[in-house]
């Protein structure tokens, strides 16, 4: 393991071009810098029509009637479609990714504000929007269920009366761990601390909203769909099932995507509407939602109401953790997670600690809110799990009067315990936590910060230091355990080396800014010695890439990255045989030095991979049994998840007069195993840390008692700007994954997982003089002010 301290290298002229892993500028940047990105809304097809969706103005209402006559007569309108019309084609409902159903267009009732009710297709965006105003819907408004805590009360309004025999708003129950064993440990513990903790509903809000361009060619029978999807292959299969179009006649293209963060994993009604519209009108149809539509109707994140309990000895040995969770899933269970994991990977709530017992019981309910739940770089709910454990550990430190860093160091899983099976059954592949923690403390100057805090407290100033240590579980996943609607979570990869030694690698995953065109070229380059500049990376087009489940849950590098490395090794194995023929030696006599085979003991005799490529496609003889060409394909099924970890330290100042929180410093030390492109990793970490500032201090999708969404624009849903975040201080350690071909673990969501508890812990630490042990996110000035006055209250 190496331990390296990374500092911003501000002005280096970065023209390195490593043949393999290392810092390298991004291959995709030139088109973005010139305004030549290819986002969905940039697609313009001849004769293209525009689709706009009419949405429910209230959270819960029965639809009594819809009059579309005035809209149909509006200038430029080509079609107006309601749920009743879709029902005639059996298209009014579609499956969600969690084996529930969701209305494409409402037929019976609307179940959340912003739900899709009808759509208009017109000559341009403006004409379509004009016509929406002319659709007359008669509603019988019903009482909504807004507070998840009241969803199961007797007499609560029934939301899902569409489900046969449904009499209440119960969605599912789930448990993990050993209840009796945990109870026994709690019974003999010296200290037990309990805390109610809410992780409020937030929204990924990528800068590009969701949308699609659908183009059905009736003669060919082929549907082309440009859409904002993180999982083009999975979407294609689902469209084939839902719409009945043969899968080979559907091409899903997700070109450049303006940020995803999980928001673009589900299939939204708008995509299906665009497909219906192109079939009905015979023209290409574009649908792009506006920002309000994105915020009120697409995949939200979190919304867990948790009670955490921790049991320990008096000297700070953590014995057990127990939690009870009420999960608000909105009107439809649209969670995008492996089907056997209805709570995602929340089961890793035992965190980074070696404990004796753990137990979680969860109840999920329907409410009159938008569906979703797994999004916003959450690593399938590990955000909630890490927030819970890292908050409750800080509560314990407070109770014991121990330093929170010391408490964590005392309880870490030790390096010799890996692979480590947690009390909830997760097998952590590798880890070495203490050096990561120590590095973060060194970078922060932890002891000096504590001294500074003491001095400031004496002067009445409010300074807080917050620590969070996380273990992530990414790279879903082994197909025996993990699938989405029956589709195993493996990923394909194809590599073809051209006669001149240039190559193309085709991925089943897709980039929303992660830099795949660079990183995957580097992965292949490392294995086969062709410079990354000579390797074209194709992704985001189902006609031109192998099947796989897409990019989310930090799974691209752990799964698809493994596939890319292994397919390159297969090509290299074939190249070795061809090289043995070219050099007239046996395969065993060849040595690989990145980019060429050498004859052992005779270094003058060598052939490069480029020479081999030409021979593979040339007219000369190849060794017995070897076909021409130099290419291969693979489908990689991971044997386990990978488990990155990290130590984060946040320093905040709280203004005692205004209760404004300022994040002064943030130190993030990440261990994501083997690092392919440090520049890209650092960028991913920076972005996640900023998300964390947003969630901890600013962001929340709130509702009033009638179910009106109060976060329906970027004026009401506050996202950090450059003024709210500090210059990030990053460092890293390297503990490779033992089962990943190159030891890489994935990093895309680590910072989003790890930063909110660090920030909240810092704010709570700053408020210690007021006797505050916990305050819920978002820690806006008013909520901090209330906490300072002993009125800390849950946000929902």
């Amino acid at each position, binding site marked *: 393991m190496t331990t390296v301290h990374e500092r911003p290298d501000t002005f280096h002229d970065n023209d390195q071009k490593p043949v393999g892993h290392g810092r390298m*500028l991004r291959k995709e940047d030139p088109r973005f*810098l*010139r305004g030549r990105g290819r986002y969905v809304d940039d697609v313009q097809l001849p004769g293209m029509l525009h689709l706009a969706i009419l949405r429910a103005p209230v959270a819960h209402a029965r639809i009594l009637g819809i009059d579309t006559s005035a809209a149909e007569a509006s200038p430029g309108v080509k079609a107006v479609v309601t749920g009743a019309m879709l029902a005639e084609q059996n298209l009014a409902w579609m499956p969600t990714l969690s084996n529930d159903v969701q209305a494409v267009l409402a037929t019976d009732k609307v179940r959340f504000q912003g739900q899709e009710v009808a759509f208009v297709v017109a000559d341009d965006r403006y004409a379509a929007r004009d016509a929406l105003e002319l659709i007359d819907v008669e509603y019988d408004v019903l009482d909504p269920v807004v507070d998840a805590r009241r969803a199961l009360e007797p007499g609560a309004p029934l939301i899902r009366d569409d489900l046969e025999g449904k009499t209440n708003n119960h969605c599912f129950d789930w448990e993990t761990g050993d209840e009796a064993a945990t109870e026994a440990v709690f019974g003999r513990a010296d200290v037990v601390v309990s805390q109610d903790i809410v992780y409020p509903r937030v929204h990924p809000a990528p800068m590009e909203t969701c949308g699609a361009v659908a183009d059905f060619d009736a003669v060919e029978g082929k549907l082309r769909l440009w859409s904002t999807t993180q999982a083009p292959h999975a979407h294609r299969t689902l469209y084939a099932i839902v719409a009945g179009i043969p899968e080979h006649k559907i091409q899903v293209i997700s070109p450049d995507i303006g940020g995803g963060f999980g928001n673009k994993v589900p299939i939204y009604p708008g995509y299906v509407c665009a497909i219906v519209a192109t079939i009905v009108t015979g023209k290409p149809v574009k649908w792009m939602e506006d920002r309000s539509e994105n915020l009120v109707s697409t995949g939200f994140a979190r919304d867990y109401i948790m009670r955490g309990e921790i049991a320990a000895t008096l000297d700070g040995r953590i014995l057990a953790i127990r939690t009870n969770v009420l999960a608000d899933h909105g009107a439809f269970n649209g969670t995008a997670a492996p089907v056997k994991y209805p709570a995602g990977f929340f089961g890793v709530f035992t965190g980074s600690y070696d404990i004796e017992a753990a137990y979680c019981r969860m109840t999920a309910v329907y409410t009159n809110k938008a569906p979703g739940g797994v999004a916003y770089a959450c690593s399938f709910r590990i955000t909630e799990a890490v927030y819970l454990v890292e908050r409750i550990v800080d509560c314990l430190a407070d109770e014991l009067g121990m330093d929170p860093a010391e408490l964590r160091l005392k309880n870490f899983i030790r390096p010799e315990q890996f692979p480590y099976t947690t009390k909830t059954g997760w097998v952590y592949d590798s880890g070495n936590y203490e050096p990561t923690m120590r590095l973060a403390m060194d970078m922060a100057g932890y002891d000096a910060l504590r001294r500074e805090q003491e001095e400031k407290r004496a002067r009445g100033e409010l300074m807080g230091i917050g620590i969070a240590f996380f273990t992530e579980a990414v790279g879903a996943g082994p197909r025996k355990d993990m699938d989405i609607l029956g589709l195993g979570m493996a990923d394909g990869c194809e590599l073809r080396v051209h006669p001149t030694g240039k190559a193309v690698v085709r991925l089943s995953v897709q980039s929303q800014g992660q830099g795949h065109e660079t990183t995957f070229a580097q992965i292949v380059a490392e294995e086969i010695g062709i410079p990354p500049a000579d390797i074209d990376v194709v992704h985001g087009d189902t006609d031109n890439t192998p099947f796989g489940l897409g990019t989310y849950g930090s799974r691209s590098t752990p799964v698809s990255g493994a596939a890319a490395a292994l397919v390159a090794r297969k090509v290299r194995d074939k190249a070795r045989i061809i090289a043995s023929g070219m050099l007239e030696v046996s395969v065993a006599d060849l040595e690989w030095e990145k980019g060429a085979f050498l004859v052992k003991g005779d270094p003058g005799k060598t052939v490069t991979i480029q020479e081999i490529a030409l021979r593979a496609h040339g007219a000369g003889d190849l060794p017995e049994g070897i076909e021409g060409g130099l290419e291969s394909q693979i489908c990689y099924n991971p044997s386990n998840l990978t488990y990155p970890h990290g130590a984060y330290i946040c320093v905040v100042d709280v203004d005692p007069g205004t209760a404004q929180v300022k994040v002064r410093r943030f130190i993030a030390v990440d261990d994501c195993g083997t690092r392919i492109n440090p520049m890209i990793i650092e960028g991913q970490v920076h972005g*996640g840390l*900023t998300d964390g500032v947003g969630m901890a201090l600013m962001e929340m999708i709130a509702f009033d008692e009638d179910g009106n969404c109060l976060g329906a624009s970027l*004026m009401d849903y506050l996202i950090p700007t*450059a003024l709210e975040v500090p210059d990030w201080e990053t460092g890293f350690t390297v503990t490779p994954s033992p089962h990943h071909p190159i030891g890489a673990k994935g990093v895309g969501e680590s910072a989003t997982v790890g930063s909110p508890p660090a920030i909240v812990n810092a704010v709570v630490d700053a408020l210690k003089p007021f006797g505050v042990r916990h305050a819920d996110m978002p820690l806006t000035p008013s909520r901090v002010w209330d906490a300072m006055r002993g009125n800390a209250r849950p946000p929902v």
Partner: protein
Amino acid sequence: MQVTMTVNDVEVTREIEGRLLLVHFLRDVLGLTGTHWGCDTSNCGTCVVWLDGEPVKSCTVLAAMAGGHEVRTVEGLARGGELDPVQQGFMQCHGLQCGFCTPGMMMTARALLDRNPDPTEAEIREAISGQICRCTGYATIVRSVRWAAVHEAAAAAQVTETTESDDAGEIANAGQPAGSLS
């Protein structure tokens, strides 16, 4: 109605609806899709272009209001095939990931450097504070703008020494005040 304006040094005349937004005019009518839109409420800044050298949010400007004025978009940032130092800085310092906010960020950054060739980190943060990036966490954007400032200063110094240098001349020209660009 008919509107005539200069976009990236080219005069264009089009028949438009009076309510057409400048961002839609640029994207849908002229096909300049480098300018994006993200919020409709002038909060996100992905739609920033220059109107007579001033950065504006083109989702809250009517195309008709730009009539008779000069508009510059990201497609007009590079001159003579050479990337502007701001564009180079964003690449060198990893100032972009998904690329969606990038055109707006670069237009603001260029305008800042035209007025203040040596901005501090705080001044850069203030300048881009009307724009949202969900990917980068802003630090690399700040570094990108500083990279451009430092390299422009170096190029300008080189021009003073050897005025024949074509490459440095390109960069120095790109650093002139926005008002003189058309």
